[in-house]
């Protein structure tokens, strides 16, 4: 509609650039964490993630091979080797004492305390020569300042997901989160669908009041429910565990489920339902054969909401699920624990966070259409 006034072209590049900036600003934090999860602890702590694609300069302490590897070449005793496992790193300066780590340039030769001569090349090859046999047990320490090419690793994911005995493991927490999420998503849908149908298409006294009641419950903070329900669960023997978490999530999810589904069902064509009634279908048949299939978009909307909410939840899990053994800990809680114990280990934190974020993000991008539809139905009328 802007075309008609003919000022489209003059403004459009400003708009484009503004949107690029806005999107960049919104993506930046997530991208930073994602990039960090593929870097090693050393890389993360020595340079910002935005430098990940550029070669990085690192100070590394390496030990040369020990005297037991020396070979005799003519009059000389020689230890040779390569400081880097992988090629591509380039040494600029090096030293043999922690007080002077930049004493020598690549290719220069240093005289060691025992009289031996050490030469380190830029590519990491080194050679120690001595006129007599070299004694001692451990290899010579070498401090190098090297420029290493960008490098990414899957080790962090491997460590957190597949090494089960590891104390930082997210594997079990992942299963645990999944176990909480799926029943907590499906059960409220079934319960709410029947209620929504009754509220949308059955006539009975008090219907309007009930709808108002549900709209009211929609905004009741679940904080209020924590203590009373925990007391209830403990007194009737459910205790802390999956069952309690499923029940709690079901209860807390119901108002939105009923509200969304009822709003959608009310909009279904009256003719279809009345024709079916005239043809002698029972209410149960109408519901199962007509209403449910037609309401699929609304069911999907709510399913996504509830899935995201239960997957991302921390509070309900902390109160109703996780007991003192910690066997049933969910990923969000695991991450909070890691924030406490591994506050500086960004490779662990970043990877843990991404393991927990990956599934909701996949669901989000795959089913965005339904999510948007649900949001619109839930708040704009």
């Amino acid at each position, binding site marked *: 509609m802007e075309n*008609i006034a003919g000022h489209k072209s003059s403004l459009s590049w400003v708009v*484009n650039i503004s949107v690029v900036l806005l999107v960049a600003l919104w993506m930046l934090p997530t991208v930073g964490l994602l990039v960090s999860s593929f870097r090693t602890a050393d890389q993360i702590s020595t340079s910002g993630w935005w430098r990940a694609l550029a070669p990085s300069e690192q100070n590394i302490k390496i030990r040369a091979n020990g005297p037991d590897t020396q070979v005799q070449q003519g009059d000389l005793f020689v230890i040779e080797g390569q400081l880097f496992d992988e090629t591509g790193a380039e040494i600029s300066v090096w030293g043999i004492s922690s007080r002077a780590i930049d004493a020598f340039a690549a290719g220069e030769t240093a005289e060691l305390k025992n009289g031996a001569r050490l030469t380190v090349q830029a590519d990491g090859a080194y050679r120690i020569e001595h006129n007599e046999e070299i004694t001692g047990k451990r290899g010579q320490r070498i401090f190098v300042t090297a420029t290493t090419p960008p490098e990414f690793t899957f080790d962090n994911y491997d460590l957190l997901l597949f090494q089960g005995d590891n104390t930082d493991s997210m594997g079990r927490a992942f299963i645990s989160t999944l176990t909480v999420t799926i029943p907590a998503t499906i059960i409220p849908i079934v319960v709410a669908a029947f209620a929504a149908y009754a509220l949308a298409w059955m006539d009975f006294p008090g219907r309007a009041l009930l709808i108002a009641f549900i709209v009211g419950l929609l905004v009741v903070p679940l904080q209020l429910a924590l203590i009373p329900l925990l007391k209830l669960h403990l007194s009737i023997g459910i205790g802390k565990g999956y069952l309690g978490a499923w029940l709690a999530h079901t209860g807390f999810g119901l108002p939105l489920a*009923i509200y969304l589904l009822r709003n959608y069902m009310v909009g279904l064509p009256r003719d279809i339902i009345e024709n079916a009634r005239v043809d002698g279908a029972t209410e149960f048949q109408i519901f199962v054969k007509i209403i449910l299939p037609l309401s699929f978009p609304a069911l999907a909307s709510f399913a996504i909401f509830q899935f995201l909410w239960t997957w*991302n939840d921390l509070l309900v899990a902390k109160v109703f699920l996780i007991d003192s053994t910690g066997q049933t800990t969910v990923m969000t809680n695991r991450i909070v624990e890691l924030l406490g114990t591994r506050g500086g280990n960004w490779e662990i934190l970043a990877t843990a966070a991404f393991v927990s974020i990956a599934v909701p993000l996949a669901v989000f991008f795959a089913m965005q259409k339904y999510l948007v539809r649900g949001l619109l139905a839930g708040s704009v009328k």
Partner: protein
Amino acid sequence: MHPAILGLVTIAIGVGGCVGYFYLSNMVLDHVIFPARGPNAGKNINRANQIRPWLFLFPALFALCLYLAYPVVETLRLSLTDRDADGAFVGLANYTQMMSEAKFWEAMRNNMLWLIVVPALSTAFGLLAAQLTDRIRWGNLAKSLIFMPMAISFVGAAVIWKLVYDARPAGTDQIGILNAVYIWMTGAEPQTWLTLPFWNSFFLMAVLVWIQTGFAMVILSAALRGIPEETVEAAIVDGAGPMQIFFKIKVPQIKSTIMVVWTTITLVVLKVFDIVFAMTNGQWETQVLANYMYDKLFRSNDWGVGSAAAMVIMLLVLPILIWNVRNARQEMR
């Protein structure tokens, strides 16, 4: 039993139980209690149809009352009793004790700041994003990307932003992008943003604004598209500039949607817990009500004061609750 199997069994029992309940209760109603045959067939069908809605509603209503309505009353009761004194009624003692705590007032002050800053910024950014993305070809992709944080948990967002705010000692390479930019621009010493009194609350709010902007954008974008084109065309013909069109023609027409977005985000803010819990846990004067309440309930085990704090949250939600219910009732007419 392995929890995953337990989960599957629960789905089967839950879903099967629900469907079975609805099916069987309908059958009992139609064939046993009020059979649609015999001398009273017509009357029986009517009676059955009067009862059926309640069969459909019963499980949902039962769960709603038990899990949401009853706790409101019970929390009110708990806030007036003392757990140590065997649940004796103590009147408003819990409330007065809470009011005398500096931490409570700190939480109140911060919550009020959150209530002003987060909805305002989220709505403003959302409106800006909606207006801009609607006019470009790759707008839908841009929307997706701005909307994406909505899928990220508060805890995940806390980790993401902790990295942004990370501070290393002066002189070493910064790994938090905020400090890197700050030092590059001002050349000053790196700051530990999350321990900076007063301002640190704003750094926490930024996380929620980041998450909620996408929500505001999606809703407002739909509303902007719903504006009748004639109004905009008329304004253009009358010589209005783009700014005037936006603020004088478009914004007034979507005022009610802006209100809905604002109140929805307000509700999120009132319950905000995870972000503060994971990032600062209320230290360095960043306490908020929901975290204060959690502290009282599960760290000090003081159910009375914790419940009182929960009631304060409920009290703040109440105006929105009433407003929503009134709107819903108006629509039903």
